[in-house]
């Protein structure tokens, strides 16, 4: 078994997904199958092979330090579920990072 139900529950927390027991029961075996299958990449991932993060090898792409127009305040806040005093209103925050 590549991954346990407890580990799946932990992943859900880390991913900020409040999953019910049913969903966990359903997802855990599916993830187990997928993870067991994709683990095949390790067969060929030898030490001396450099990893590729970007398929097209560009470097040093910069923007000049010049101002661009901002959004109008009503545009910035238009999609917000809740607004107060020009700010995004969010539920109470538990802890500081």
């Amino acid at each position, binding site marked *: 078994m590549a991954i346990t139900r407890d580990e799946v529950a932990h992943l859900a927390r880390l991913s900020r997904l409040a999953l019910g027991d049913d969903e966990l029961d359903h997802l855990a075996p599916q993830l187990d199958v997928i993870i067991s299958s994709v683990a095949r990449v390790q067969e060929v991932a030898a030490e001396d092979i450099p990893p590729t993060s970007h398929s*097209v090898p560009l470097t040093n792409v910069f923007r000049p330090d010049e101002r661009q127009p901002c959004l109008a305040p009503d545009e910035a806040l238009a999609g917000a579920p809740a607004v107060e005093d020009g700010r995004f209103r969010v*539920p109470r925050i538990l802890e500081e990072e």
Partner: protein
Amino acid sequence: MGTDLIRLTAAEMAAVIASGETSAVEVTRAHLDRIAAVDARVHAFLQVDTEGALAAARSVDERRAAGELLGPLAGVPIAVKDVFTTKGLPTTCGSRILEGWRPPYDATVVRRLRDAGMVILGKTNMDEFAMGSSTENSAYGPTRNPWNLDRIPGGSSGGSSAAVASYQAPLGIGTDTGGSIRQPAAVCGIVGGKPTYGGVSRYGLVAFASSLDQAGPFARTVLDAALLHAAIAGHDPADTTSIDAPVPSVVEAARGADVAGLRVGVVKELGGEGYQPGVLRRFAEAIELLDSLGAKVTEVSCPHFGYALPAYYLIAPSECSSNLARFDAMRYGLRTGDDGTSSAEEVMAVTRAAGFGAEVKRRIMLGTYALSSGYYDAYYGSAQKVRTLISRDFQAAFEQVDVLVSPTTPTTAFPIGERVDDPMAMYLADLCTIPSNLAGNAALSLPCGLAPEDNLPVGLQVMAPVLGDDRPYRVAAALEAGYADRWGHPLLEEAPAL
């Protein structure tokens, strides 16, 4: 007149509008009528922007009347996958979590379409956040394949492919992260291209897997696809991964249609066991046709392609787990569970659980797992190495041949519901298309006939090196002409009437 208009190619539509034979408004109306007539059954569109489309068409007609010189696709309608931001027009990515969101800005691709005088008919259905191969993962219900309404139209860009295949639009925009343009094009019997990574700006394309996502065209002809490709491609300073080089001359290549002397490699690892017999039969015919047109066909081995699928299902979920973190109920989109006492943390988790569908959750969790400390090297790190191996396979192959070919998908369109809860089976649909996303090279799918066992379209994939985007168009145009000679009509004419 309306029925005739919608069956024209995009190039023909542009010509009759330019000549004044008809107007952009008339062409647009004809397509809006078609949508009204058939889309209740196909469900290609999530949103039809009737007023915006007519306004854009009127503007083209007015500018033309004023003597302005307009681009080669001016006045031509288009269907845009709902993964691109459109200013003021809802953009959902097929997800509940973005229901009702109206972006304050246009994607670069959308802006280029508008600048080209093209008429955006609306936003098309898709697998939620482009994760899927059937468009069944849309929160707003599946799209149906115009060839057989009980079959999937492919995915994730199934709305755009179905819209083009059912004459609701002559052109469509899709995105291709693991095959999401080529596979739906193949199963809908149309042309779909994935440009070189960095060829088309990703600015305003809501990211699924940033290092793999690429926007591209759907069309019913190779030339139309090339015209659309040329309209959207080119450097964009807003996307630092966008390539600052001239756009490959895809339109000339599509008009050239000559493969004499071209070296074509058949990828040994993409075919054979596990492929539908009718798919293999049509693929073999395509090879014969290429041979008869003067191409030099050989077999080429890409030994690591067998590892592309597992590598993809580590890289794409990893990036998606991070890209989709922003959907958290704080700044836009859905918010549930905010009862005044719950914490932000709880509201985030409840909203995300309610707002994302099963496949998106699976991939977010898979990606979170692959990036976790302790697993990173074994999973994400190894997948990045496979990516290097795939690129090396391509490089070695392109030293021997000019293009590579394979079936686009192992099977034709499968029945709706067949694989929806069997992720591994669903993932197999992208077996042949994924290597080009991992390596970033150009690829295209074109129709090569119907599989005899189910009378459904089969696609042929043509792959070219990075920035060699013109080559697939050249090959595809030659084959298209060859098939026209053999069949006497475009393949789509064999589709049952809707």
